[in-house]
Structure formats: structure tokens, C-alpha cells
């Protein structure tokens, strides 16, 4: 056999991955082979691959169960690590870990985005001394991820399990896309849970994609198939620059989608009646440009990337259709992470306010709503990208603060004529101030007294009064809002500020 023939033979063997039976098993579950996944992910396949021959002295471990390399997404070079679950269930040996570390270090040096295509059973127990505890052990993967965080976009596509320590790969990514039915994350398997703590539970219930994307919030995006996950990631990256030093790429501006009802028509006059904030968002952004994050988790707050006039804008919007748009511990956490994500990568922020405040009651106090709310305030306050807050309807109490109210250095606070800013709404305020008085009044006089006091209160918080006091910077007709935003974002693009100098803040976590 010639040298060339030997090389070709070895390459062919490695490219095939693990045994046929494991390929078949994956196929039954709707799982694609790792090289097929990469073909779909990149514009034109993987451009360079490193340590293709890792562990090639052992025929049963092609590439040691992981593909690492660089390819292009939307014309941009990105690093990738992709587990091969046909090789020992994608488990990590010494060389697997070293390959992952090296591609992370390449991402650090070149300041390129990195994607983790995870489908792995975790550590190879038989190899633990070589891959678990040491300086170049698996712990360093997370150390590298933490170092990469905020420098370059980190994306996790979860196609299979991500178990025990491995579950921290998704945890440190900016975003985690999970394939329903196949993806899972857990520290201890259901079998272990039964043995160690006596709990009987299924994998889906404990660590499935649906659970993580709607209850725990560890997952961000739930998709049906692997190609869906891949196309989500390609689209998501189009809103980002390659690293924290640059601004996102500008695309050609698209008109707003045409609707029968205008913005004015969709906002109910009654402040307490719900409406769908998505309808509002769709009337100010470029057509079909909304890329929602954490759709199923804490839906009372909408977070997503969009384009306005072809440029990336991160939207944080209260959703009156869900839980009245009230802020809860989970919605505060969701907002904090999203704001940090946008601020890290120079994506301007837009806050759309229609918020009755933070939730009250025993349940949320025990859950530490003050601590969680503080995270949102801190993230919003620290964000130095252009930030505009729009008061759509009510902005009550600490809700005004958390949604980038005037005290938090937004570049502008814009009110629609329907805006109402106050410590609390008229109903609650009149009740708080006059509760005793109302109780003393004869039954038949109460209603008219309450109405009179509420009207007085409404006059007191009149939006023109607040404009006169310069609490807000502009009052804009809803149908002119987009135009106003386009102009303001164009002008604020020059913004270049440092929040403050120090090692780091000490806020609640």
C-alpha cells in the first residue's frame, strides 16, 4: 500500500464515524450524523479541521468522538466543536477534551464566535484520571467558556444529552437551542436520582427540552428538528458582530409588514385591558425580522432580536397578554441575561413599557423577587449601548425603573399619548390613600367618591404634566414611532461611554 493509499484509507475510516448500528440508532431518533450537521451549519462545509486523527491508533475511536474546526456562517468564520454520538456515545476522553480546549483557545486568539453542537454522554469513566481532574481536564472547558463569555458569541445547539458536568457547556453559552424529544440536560440521570434520593421521574420531566425551555429557563429556544435548530443558529448569528470589538452588520432596510389595523387601533383605551405586544412590535420593526429568545419562559416579558432600518435592535417588552405584563422573578432574570447579551455585542436596546409593576405577595417574596429584580435593574443600568425606552401605556412603580426609566440614563424616554407614569395605578392609589375614608362613607356615596378621587389622580399624573416637567423627552404619535426610532438610533450610534471604572460590581445573583 502506498503512502497516499494508506492516508486515504485512514481518512475514509475516520470520516465514517462509529459503527453502523449507532448510525442507525441515531437515525431512528431523527438525529443526523455529526458531519451532516456541519454540512447544514456552514455556508460551504467545514473549511479547516484540527486533530482529525486524534486517537487514530485506536480504530474504534475516530477523531476521539468530536469534530473541531472552522467554517463560515453568513460569510463569517466561526469555530465549532461537535460531538459524534456514534463514537462511544459522544463521551469525552483525554483527546476529546484537549480538542475542545484547543478550538476554544483558537476562538479566543482569533476572537471568533464559537458553536458547541452537543450530543454527549459525558466523561469516559475509564479515562477519568486523564480527562477529569487536571489542568487540561474538562473543568478547563468551562474556564475557557467563562473567559470567552462576552468576548465572542457562544452558541449551544443541544441535539442529545448533556449530562452531569457536561451540562455546564450550555449553561455558559449565550443561547441554548434544544431539539424537542432528543435534547436533555441534567446533573444526575433519573436512574441516579432513584438510587440516591429515591425520586422516580422520567428523563423528559426532569431534564427534557420542553421543561428547560419553559420552566427552568436553562434552555432558550425549543425546536422540533435538528435542521430547525441549525437554521435558528444561522439566523441568530446574523444579528451579531463576530466579537465585542465590532458592531453588528447592517442589512438592507425592509419596510414594516402591512397590517389592516394601525398601532393606534391595537392599543386598548382601558389601561387594564390586555393586548398582544407582539402586534405592537411587528408594527415598528423590519418585516419578519423578529428572532425571539426564551419564548416559552416567563412569557409576561418578551425578549428578542430585531432589525429597525436594517440594523440590529434588542427588544425588551412587557406582554400585557400574559400575567398582565407584571414582572416576576423569572421575567427579571430573563431580562437581565438578554440585556447583558445585547450590551456585550453592541446591539442597541429598545424597552417597550406597559407594566403594572413587580408582582407582590408571599409566593414571590419567598422566591426573592427583590433579589431577582435587582439583577434586571443592574444589567439595564450598566448597559452602555444606545438605549431608548418607549412608554406604551402604564409604567407603574419599580416597573418604570426596571424598564429603563429616566433615572437610568436611557438616551431617550419617549411616551405615546396613551402613556401613564406613576408609583401605582389610579385604582390602587385611591385605595391606598383613602381606604379608611372610603370605609367610613355611607355605601351609596362610595362609588362617586372613588371616581372623583381617581379622576383627580389621573389629572395629577397627566402625561403632558410629566412632559412639562421634562420627565419624558418626547411625546410621539404611535404611527410615527418607527420613524422617530430610526432617527434616534442613527444619531445615538456615536455613543461611546464607559459605565464606570472598577474590577466588577457586587450585585445580587
Amino acid at each position, binding site marked *: 500500500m502506498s503512502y497516499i493509499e494508506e492516508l486515504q484509507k485512514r481518512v475514509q475510516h475516520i470520516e465514517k464515524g462509529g459503527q453502523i448500528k449507532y448510525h442507525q440508532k441515531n437515525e431512528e431518533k431523527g438525529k443526523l450524523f455529526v458531519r451532516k450537521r456541519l454540512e447544514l451549519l456552514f455556508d460551504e462545509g467545514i473549511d479547516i479541521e484540527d486533530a482529525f486523527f486524534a486517537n487514530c491508533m485506536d480504530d474504534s475511536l475516530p477523531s476521539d468522538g468530536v469534530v473541531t474546526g472552522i467554517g463560515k456562517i453568513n460569510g463569517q468564520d466561526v469555530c465549532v466543536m461537535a460531538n459524534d454520538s456514534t463514537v462511544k456515545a459522544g463521551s469525552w476522553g483525554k483527546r476529546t477534551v484537549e480538542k475542545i480546549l484547543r478550538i476554544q483557545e483558537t476562538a479566543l486568539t482569533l476572537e471568533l464566535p464559537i458553536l458547541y453542537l452537543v450530543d454527549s454522554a459525558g466523561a469516559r469513566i475509564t479515562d477519568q484520571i486523564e480527562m477529569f481532574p487536571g489542568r487540561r481536564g474538562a473543568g478547563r472547558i468551562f474556564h475557557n467558556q467563562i473567559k470567552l463569555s462576552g468576548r465572542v458569541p457562544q452558541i449551544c445547539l443541544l441535539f442529545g444529552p448533556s449530562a452531569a458536568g457536561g451540562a455546564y457547556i450550555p449553561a455558559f453559552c449565550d443561547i441554548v437551542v434544544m431539539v424537542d424529544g432528543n435534547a436533555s440536560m441534567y446533573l444526575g440521570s433519573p436512574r441516579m436520582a432513584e438510587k440516591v434520593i429515591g425520586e422516580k421521574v422520567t428523563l423528559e420531566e426532569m431534564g427534557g427540552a420542553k421543561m428547560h425551555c419553559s420552566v427552568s429557563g436553562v434552555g432558550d429556544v425549543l425546536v422540533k428538528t435538528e435542521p430547525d435548530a441549525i437554521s435558528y443558529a444561522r439566523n441568530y448569528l446574523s444579528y451579531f458582530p463576530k466579537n465585542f470589538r465590532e458592531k453588528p452588520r447592517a442589512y438592507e432596510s425592509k419596510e414594516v409588514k402591512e397590517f389592516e389595523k394601525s398601532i393606534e387601533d391595537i392599543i386598548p383605551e382601558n389601561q*387594564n*385591558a*390586555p393586548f398582544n405586544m407582539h402586534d405592537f412590535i411587528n408594527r415598528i420593526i423590519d418585516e419578519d425580522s423578529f428572532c425571539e429568545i426564551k419564548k416559552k419562559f416567563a412569557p409576561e416579558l418578551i425578549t428578542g432580536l430585531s432589525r429597525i432600518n436594517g440594523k440590529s435592535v434588542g427588544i425588551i417588552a412587557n406582554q*400585557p*397578554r*400574559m*400575567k*398582565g*405584563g*407584571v414582572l*416576576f422573578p423569572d421575567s427579571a432574570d430573563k431580562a437581565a441575561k438578554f440585556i447583558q447579551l445585547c450590551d456585550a455585542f453592541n446591539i442597541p436596546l429598545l424597552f417597550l413599557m406597559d407594566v*403594572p*409593576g413587580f*408582582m*407582590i*405577595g408571599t*409566593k414571590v417574596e419567598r422566591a426573592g423577587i427583590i433579589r431577582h429584580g435587582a439583577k434586571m435593574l443592574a444589567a439595564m443600568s450598566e448597559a452602555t449601548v444606545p438605549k431608548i425606552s418607549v412608554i406604551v401605556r402604564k409604567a407603574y412603580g419599580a416597573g418604570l425603573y426596571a424598564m429603563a426609566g429616566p433615572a437610568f440614563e436611557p438616551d431617550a424616554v419617549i411616551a405615546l399619548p396613551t402613556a401613564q407614569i406613576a408609583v401605582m*395605578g389610579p*385604582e*390602587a392609589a385611591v385605595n391606598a390613600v383613602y381606604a379608611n375614608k372610603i370605609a367610613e362613607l355611607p355605601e351609596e356615596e362610595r362609588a362617586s367618591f372613588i371616581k372623583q378621587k381617581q379622576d383627580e389622580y389621573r389629572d395629577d399624573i397627566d402625561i403632558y404634566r410629566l412632559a412639562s416637567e421634562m420627565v419624558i423627552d418626547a411625546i410621539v404619535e404611535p404611527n410615527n414611532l418607527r420613524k422617530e426610532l430610526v432617527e434616534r438610533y442613527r444619531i445615538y450610534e456615536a455613543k461611546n461611554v464607559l459605565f464606570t471604572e472598577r474590577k466588577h460590581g457586587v450585585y445580587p445573583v
Partner: protein
Amino acid sequence: MEEVKAMMAGNVWKIVVAEGDTVEEDQDIVILESMKMEIPIAAEEAGVVKEIKVAEGDFVNEGDVIAIIES
């Protein structure tokens, strides 16, 4: 069968369907009143309303079952 649950604590303000009604996905079943806001609680799946477990004026806690829908 789907249990429609209260997504937050509040009072049942209006029940907008009746037992036996056919409902679509995302159709409102009841409207709660909480934090001075109207909070619609919708069906997550289409089906027939088998049972309504609350009355107008009732206090419900987060997670309480409001209705049962048979798909």
C-alpha cells in the same frame, strides 16, 4: 386532556366559555383580575370544555386548575 391552570394568583373576574363549548388553541377560557389587570387564561390546545372548576369571584392561586379541556 388538558388542564387549564392559573398562571398567577388572582380573582376569577369572568368565565367566557361554558361546559360543552368547543374551543380553539389560545382561546380565552376565563379572565382573572390581579394586580388591577385583566389576566386572560387561554387554552393551550383545542378541544371541548369538559369541566369548569371555578366560579366568578373565586380566588385562585398560581397553578390551580381552572378548567379541563378534552382534545
